[in-house]
């Protein structure tokens, strides 16, 4: 029951967003929802620590049981509510295999993005190195190239094949975050097309981060990330931006 579920979340955070997308897809609107602020440190508040000793968002409880790990929550919701809403795990074993793998590949993608976008937040001043910054950018570039290739192999337009699956639930918020951080659409046309095609899907549109709606301007942190097939420049923008602190 949606009423037995409570989600504490932060806007823009891909792990939070993916649970919200899953809840919408399974027709579980009506869950208890509270938006918190990373900037104000509310992810370390007593309210969060009570259900998530890691002091992280999302903090999600189902009937009193904490299920804070977002990918775990998505699997749980599809499992338990299999017969309602949209079917998020395909029957075809081949597509299922791709789906499972892509879901767990979200983790290296997020890690590699975070170490570029939040390098100064994650690495204390005395430990920072230009060599590391350079390597992290190259690593992220290689990772993004892999995802461009993945999207080339699934002409259905979704990550696992012909239908929207848990892989898209898990990954769309990460890909949206990349573009929010200024990833160049011209250099990553497949990712851009994916982003564009899915942003109006009801479950995604309804749960679009409110802070992004208020301030639609993208940042330029990832503007210079190049693919080896790069062509064309991307516009430079110098506006001050809202930053969603990555948990």
């Amino acid at each position, binding site marked *: 029951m949606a009423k037995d579920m409570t989600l504490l979340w932060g806007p823009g955070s891909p792990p939070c967003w993916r649970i919200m997308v899953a809840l919408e897809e399974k027709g579980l609107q009506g869950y208890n929802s509270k938006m918190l602020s990373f900037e104000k440190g509310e992810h370390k508040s007593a309210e969060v620590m009570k259900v998530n*000793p890691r002091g992280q968002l999302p903090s999600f409880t189902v009937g009193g*049981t904490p299920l804070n790990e977002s990918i*775990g929550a998505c699997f749980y919701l599809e499992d338990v509510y299999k017969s309602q809403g949209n079917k998020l795990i395909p029957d075809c074993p081949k597509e299922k295999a791709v789906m*499972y*793998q892509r879901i767990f590949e979200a983790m290296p993608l997020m890690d590699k993005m975070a170490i570029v976008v939040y390098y100064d937040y994650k690495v204390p001043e005395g430990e920072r190195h230009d060599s590391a910054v350079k390597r992290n950018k190259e690593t992220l570039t290689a990772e993004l190239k892999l995802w461009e290739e993945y999207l080339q192999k699934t002409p259905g337009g979704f990550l696992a094949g012909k239908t929207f699956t848990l892989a898209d639930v898990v990954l769309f918020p990460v890909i949206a975050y990349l573009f929010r951080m200024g990833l160049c659409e011209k250099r990553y046309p497949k990712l851009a097309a994916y982003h564009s095609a899915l942003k109006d899907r009801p479950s995604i549109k309804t749960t679009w981060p409110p802070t992004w709606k208020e301030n639609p301007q993208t940042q330029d942190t990832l503007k210079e990330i190049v693919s080896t097939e790069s062509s064309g420049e991307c516009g430079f923008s110098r506006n001050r931006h809202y930053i969603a602190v990555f948990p």
Partner: protein
Amino acid sequence: MAKSMNLLWGSGSPPCWRVMITLEEKKLQGYKHKLLSFEKGEHKSQEVLEINPRGQLPAFRHGDNIVNESAATCLYLENEFKSQGTKLIPDSPAERALMYQRMMEGLTLTDKLNAVIYYEWFVPEGERHNSAVNRNKEALATELKLWESYLQKVSAGSYLAGAFSLADVIVFPNIAFAFRFGLSVGRYPNLAKYYRFLKDRASIKSSWPPQWLPSAQGFDNLKDL
């Protein structure tokens, strides 16, 4: 069934071990497999890259279906072979929620273990700092204390989410890894109990790593934790 499966693996790798435990639990013995050497860089060989462009182990194929990423492989196998072998996902929603939670937390535990034990493997010489080493150790100690608390009520047949489940498949190899690298049994009694209860489970015993890849310090990185 098993004969159409191929696993490329490395010894002492918790992710590889998880897949092997699952194959045993689902009665899929007889799968093709090949032991490769991390030290010789065989995880970056063409043979691996053809299945896993990331050049990582485990690399797993079932017929035409490739499923890399150990947790993905384990979930795929449990899903495809639900009706044979051990049931690895509990029925009750509360236990299932707990299982998914601990399973995913197990991946965080892996990262924190690697950050300490294989620090020199991941961080180039010019970028290493004692401050980072110490911070990684503290983060791992905090993480392990959390797992101690999760296993307060561990007993025979009652593990991370009740009966043996995918949570244990994912996490047990990490715990064995930690003890192999010197974690104190005295300071982590619940983890030690968990380890003792499960080390002789058939699927675990039969797939026990033939050897472990030493860290730059050998095998006692965690003795002071």
